[in-house]
């Protein structure tokens, strides 16, 4: 019973946040809407016993990513009018068709099969030991994909630094040459 009430509240909050994000005129309110949705999703993770995922969701998405969004929005300045012209022809009808299609696909998939097995209302795994369970899976069965992901992220970080450096290099060389 409690679970249903909590779910109803945060499901509405998640949907409301998503609507605000799409429809708000002011980008700061859009960011706040997205934040609300992310936070509600963290609550869903907690309800499913995935405390670790919930904490990471709040820490990474709400804490870091959204803060950067806000930072960028504020640096660019929110007072400028945003160009809201729709460039793609038939944008709105396409959105309606694709959106309804997606909803039907999700419902059809959920009707047919659950990856986690059908909802039983009880925690089948140990609900309090999530961090140990995750690390055992991650560093045991899925070590190779995990390391590959790390490699990917490292490449991305190094690439960012490299791009910034390459862009600067010609100018640095020129100014150095002039001084000599």
């Amino acid at each position, binding site marked *: 019973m*409690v679970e249903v009430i909590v779910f109803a509240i945060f499901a509405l909050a998640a949907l409301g946040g998503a609507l605000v994000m799409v429809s708000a005129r*002011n980008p*700061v*309110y859009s960011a*706040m809407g997205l*934040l609300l949705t992310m936070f509600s999703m963290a609550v869903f993770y907690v309800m499913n016993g995935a*405390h*670790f995922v919930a*904490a*990471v969701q*709040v*820490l990474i998405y*709400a*804490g*870091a990513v959204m*803060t*950067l969004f*806000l*930072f960028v929005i*504020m*640096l660019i300045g*929110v007072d400028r009018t945003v160009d809201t012209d729709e460039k793609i022809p038939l944008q709105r009808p396409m959105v309606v068709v694709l959106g309804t299609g997606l909803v039907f696909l999700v419902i059809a998939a959920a009707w047919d099969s659950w990856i986690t097995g059908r909802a039983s209302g009880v925690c089948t795994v140990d609900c*309090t*030991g*999530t*961090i140990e369970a995750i690390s055992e899976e991650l560093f045991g069965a899925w070590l190779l994909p995990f390391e590959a992901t790390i490699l990917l992220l490292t490449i991305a970080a190094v690439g960012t630094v490299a791009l910034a450096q390459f862009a600067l290099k010609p100018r640095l060389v020129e100014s150095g040459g002039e001084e000599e």
Partner: protein
Amino acid sequence: MTGWEIFLTAAIKTVAAFAFLLTLTIILVWFERKTVADLQNRIGPNRAGPWGLLQTVADGAKLLFKESVTPRKVEFGLYIAAPVAALVPALLIFLVVPIGRPFHIGDRLIDLSGTDLNIGLLYILALSSLAVYAVVLAGWSSGSKYPLLGAVRASAQMISYEAAMGLALVPLILFTGTTSLKQIVEIQGGSFGDTFLPAWNVVLIPSFLIFFIAGIAETNRAPFDLVEAESEIVGGYHTEYSGFRFAMFFLAEYINIFNIAAITVTLFLGGWHGPTFGLGAPFDWVLPIFWFLAKSMALVFVFVWVRATLPRMRYDQLMSFGWKRLIPVSLLWIALSTLAIGVRRMGLPWT
């Protein structure tokens, strides 16, 4: 336990923790003003009540009855939400900190913390990362230049030092093998071998220092108080706030100071562990609370001491200290401590 019992226990603990924090703030503000006055050769508050103890109560009452001025250019919704966003994470963080030895009521064991989360440390990091929203939203929604400057400074500063804070905790997690604060405290009981030295995690001194410095930066205290630097940007993000809305920012700041002190004590200084002198019944759970509070207040004193001693950093110094000193040092310390812990657990690779 049945559902109702769980609900009631949680409600009682939460209300108790909030009441404790709000009462403590009154003492903390008085403590800071008195200590800073002493360090600056002044007397400090001495009119209201004995030793000026009631000064904070008087100030609080004044703020309650003061008019909350709302400037015309504010974004009202977010302007109202920002003080709440400041206070809520500050109150919630404290719920996972164990403030004393678990004790029995009848045959039931009661933990002296709001709850014991398996992901305790991550919970703390997650909530402290939410604190930045209060500053950013307050600064932006005020519709004024100085608050906006304060907010932009805050978002850059808090993200930078959060990284160092998180990295400082990695060696601790490796060393203790858990992120539950209750277990971290339990591991620190007893002493090293046959010595009288307590087995606190303070052996991880670099982690302790980095965490505490980053903690000072996270709470926007001097010498990292560029967010609300009076001499540069008036009051920073809370320039346009007055009355009780301002009081909520004020409360959040002091509760956060105590939170950082309490968490540092829990993680590195043995939590509630301390000598109980074998005094028996009531003392073996009263004394741990005393030790916890004493250690926390000692660290709060360090906060105040640092504030009264060090001048404010320049903004480029703040950034280069965070990114070029603290984060590389904590990465190096992670590498070193991982090697040490690996060798301790598994021996040298060639033996």
